[in-house]
């Protein structure tokens, strides 16, 4: 449904495979995400969705295949991986805010250390993004004092502070109480409407329908189907995606 124009390829994954010991976690993944595009990745648990997006910023190391992020190849053991990571924002299922730092310090630490900007300047950026996730009044609290939904919104703001070119969401609402989910999804929808390039691993099919340009369905470490939301939900082309959808939406 997005009206934003879709531009040049931002993430290009070709022939990506990964094993944990002898277990094949990912097999021959090919996916290109262009700037401005919103891709939702879904599939049963253990299907390699998280592993795939974690390879993009090398929190997981792949063994075979190539990944390009904004024209730069990322590979295991590379130097300057930090430079790539600064262009790739990531939001985790379990928030992973730094509990010993206040909310605003959680946001300023990245820009201050990475870009060497002053505390005042970093705070200004931080407050801008805290306002954007509607949580500026909590700036001086510590993460454990916030609700799960608030923590996740802070985590989104923390990623945005680095002005990333792409945002990765790794099941951002799976650890939240039901009444907290809408607040976080709203932020993500706003972000999508502003034209941010996004790859979201999520089970929120309502969100997927509303925001996604493409749905990527994975099972057992492979991409089984890639389709536009309407096609995917109304007319899935494989048995595995049919089964998955019936389990997810059936009751």
């Amino acid at each position, binding site marked *: 449904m997005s009206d934003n124009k879709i531009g040049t390829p931002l993430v290009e994954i070709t022939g990506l495979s990964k094993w944990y010991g002898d277990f094949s976690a990912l097999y021959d993944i090919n996916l290109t995400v262009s700037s401005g595009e919103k891709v939702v990745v879904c599939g049963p648990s253990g299907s390699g969705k998280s592993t795939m997006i974690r390879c993009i910023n090398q929190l997981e190391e792949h063994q075979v295949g190539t990944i390009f992020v904004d024209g730069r190849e990322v590979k295991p053991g590379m130097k300057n991986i930090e430079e790539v990571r600064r262009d790739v924002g990531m939001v985790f299922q379990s928030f*992973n805010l730094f509990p010993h730092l206040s909310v605003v310090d959680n946001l300023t630490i990245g820009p201050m250390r990475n870009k060497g900007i002053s505390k005042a300047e970093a705070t200004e950026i931080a407050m801008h993004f805290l306002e954007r996730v509607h949580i500026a009044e909590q700036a001086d609290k510590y993460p454990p004092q916030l609700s799960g939904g608030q923590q996740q919104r802070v*985590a989104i703001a923390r990623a945005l502070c680095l002005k990333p070119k792409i945002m990765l969401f790794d099941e951002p609402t799976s650890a939240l109480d039901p009444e907290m989910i809408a607040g976080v999804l709203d932020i993500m929808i706003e972000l999508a409407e502003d034209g941010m390039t996004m790859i979201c691993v999520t089970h929120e099919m309502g969100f997927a329908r509303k925001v996604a340009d493409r749905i990527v369905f994975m099972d057992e470490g492979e991409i089984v189907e890639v389709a536009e939301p309407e096609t995917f939900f109304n007319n899935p082309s494989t048995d595995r995606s049919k089964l998955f959808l019936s389990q997810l939406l059936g009751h």
Partner: protein
Amino acid sequence: MNRNTPPPSKLKKRLTVVDFLLYGAVALFIFYAVYRVNDVLVYHWNWSKVLGFLVKFDDESEAWVSNLLLQGLWTTLRLALWATVLATVFGIVMGYWRTCKNLTLRIISRTYVELIRNMPPVVFIFIFYFFVSSQIFPALGIEDIDSEGAFASSAMFHFMFGDPQLFSNFLAGMLCLALFEGAYITEIVRAGIQSTEKGQWEAARAIGLSPFNVLRDIVIPQAVRKILPPLAGQFITLIKDSAIISLISIQELTFVATEVAATTTRVFETWILVGFMYFILCYSFALLFAHLERRAKRSQR
């Protein structure tokens, strides 16, 4: 009862019959020990002789100055403080290496820890003393430091390292103690670093922090809070372990105590007094660390 009723007060804890029986048993034991010493051994206590080794009146400067036992205590304190600083440095570096991906660093730190942990401290100290301090120090020229030189003879030097003529001796003891305790601190630091959740490392990396900043800004601050209690315990252990250094003739408290006990023949009094001195020293550090811990907890919220 309504919403504003205060909560019911807690039951007061009272001493029970069992408690009184236990107190009685302890009192009886003490009474018996004193009785044995006084009537069976016929031991004549003479504290004044030993207490005289704490402070003495110096005729030259006409003032009270610390005598052997107090000097020993100062040496123990100096040893313990410097060894603590050094052991912490070893512990942080080696503890970090223990968690590194680099195999060489892991081998070095693992070897260090295992060598020291699986050897009796006394044996380690003898090996260290006879090889390192008798072979390497002369080679490094540490034996030849000019004890009359401007820095060595300054009051500052004396305050920090004691008698300059005993400096290489002091250095050997201090290094020995630091290496020995460093191995234990290494393991505490390793546990602290590894206890930091995987998600914290990942989040820190994901915002593009360099490996050094990940450690300094995210992992170490969280680890320090967790390892403060075991670390404090290790520092106090270090003070107590410094007694072993007396075996290589470092003139710390235990070493001078053996001398005092021998010259005065007041064995009971000497060791009870020295035990009390160690207790005061260690206990005051325990109180200090407990205070620091409470403060760290408060600031953590």
